[in-house]
């Protein structure tokens, strides 16, 4: 989980200026994504590489 301090450091590195009123929302949004990503099935993900999105169709 990121803290506000982590967030502002990341933002600085990315040349982004986060207004004080936006900090909490951005932090909650990113931490929500990070928590949800942690819930993905790691064992299954380890067996796969992302493929082209054009793959598929009736002969796939």
């Amino acid at each position, binding site marked *: 989980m990121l803290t506000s301090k982590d967030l502002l450091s990341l933002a600085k590195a990315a040349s982004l200026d986060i207004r004080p009123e936006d900090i909490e929302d951005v932090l909650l949004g990113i931490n929500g994504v990070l928590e949800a990503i942690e819930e993905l099935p790691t064992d299954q993900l380890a067996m796969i590489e992302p493929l082209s999105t054009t793959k*598929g169709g*009736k002969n796939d």
Partner: protein
Amino acid sequence: MTNPLHRHTLTESAHLVAQGAISSTELIQSYLDQISRMNPTLNAFITVLRDQALQDAKSADEAIKNNKPLGSLHGVPIAIKDQVHTAGIATTSASKIRSTFVPKKDATVVERLKNAGAIIIGKLNMTEFAMGDPVTSHYGITHNPWGLGRDPGTSSTGAGSATAAFMTAASIGEDTGGSIRGPAAHCGLAGIRPSWGLVSRFGLDGASWSLDTLGPLGRTVEDVAQVLQAIAGYDPLDPTTSTQIVPDYTSAMTGNISEMRIAVLHEFVDGPRAKLHPAVRHSIEDAIRTFKSLGAVVDTISIPNANHAGTASRTISFVERVSIHPEWIRERPQDFHPNTRTAFLTGELIPAQAYYKAQKMRDLIRSDVFAVLRNYDVIIMPTDESPAGIMNPEPGFKTVEAAKEGLRKSMYRGLFSAVSGPAISIPSGFAQEGGFNLPVGLQIASMPFREDLVFKCAHAFEQATKWHQQDPPNC
């Protein structure tokens, strides 16, 4: 008293115009009158092309008079989401940042609609930069004709509202994580997210490179199929389009689905993460009975990884969205709606490892779905777990759990965004909420480039039910 012309379906209107039973000018005028009546309340249009549409209608009538060859959409009005380029007409993405942008060239979709004879009647409101929050448009909130103050479905808010309120015969929306299907469900329409690569995105101010699709919303499945037929197919200006031959969609719509095998997705109906509104649950159970009565084989199947479809598709779209114009959030942050600004900042700062895992998850989900679709023609599921909610102007999340809840709820439409296959939403019932009669939608999806199967199944359901024949109040 006969119905006004704007109450005909697109297919009926095209037929009447081609036969000379009505003129395109009469038809367009009827729609413009309806826009004058309804748009001040619903705010579905950013730009109404009143003079241009009437001039084009006059040309369409001249073509009929002179026995010129006619396209399939000759003389009928179609409205376009305002992130799709229209030559000489502002294309704003509902933002202050793009408010003065006037493209020099039509998007391929617009060009193909015009080649088919369609008349572009206006540019439609949407959420700012096609983000999923209904209150962010620089041009004001669009209302749902089924209930003022209710979410018309994002991000193609104007497409849903205008088409349902008879202000256009059909519309073009853009679907990244559900932005055609959501408005279709909330506004009682048919709307298809086509296969990724079926419809050119040349001239689209995109949201997410690997997820964006352009597609139609209409009042019937046949209308949607007619419009998709006109815009689908390879475009040398968009190298991501497929070279596959586009089949004749209407010939698939026989009404006979007795040979079809239909899978019901357990996770989105009875799974631990599904939280269906009682009316949505009732509608899916009703739909299963309807399909069985039509002779289809209907089985419940399980795809556990579908539970993660919202996380995968939203994480990918968050990141890809800001990659298109990274300078805007750095140079003009004050010109964004606060909710869009924080979403852009979130997308900028999601770690690469999270994006990479989301892409892996997407591929895993695709493999799982394809495995099911080797044994079934289509998968059915609710388009959304609830009818149109109340629009909340308050910005932001209050907790991490609330942020995660947004990702969870995205799974219903995020699944086939991740899969890249076609998914249609069609009306399947109503919910009584807050004194309103609000539509709910059924989603029917299949393998990439099997729109024919989706239309076949959706059309048979539509013919067997009457949900699509109900109209919003006061329209």
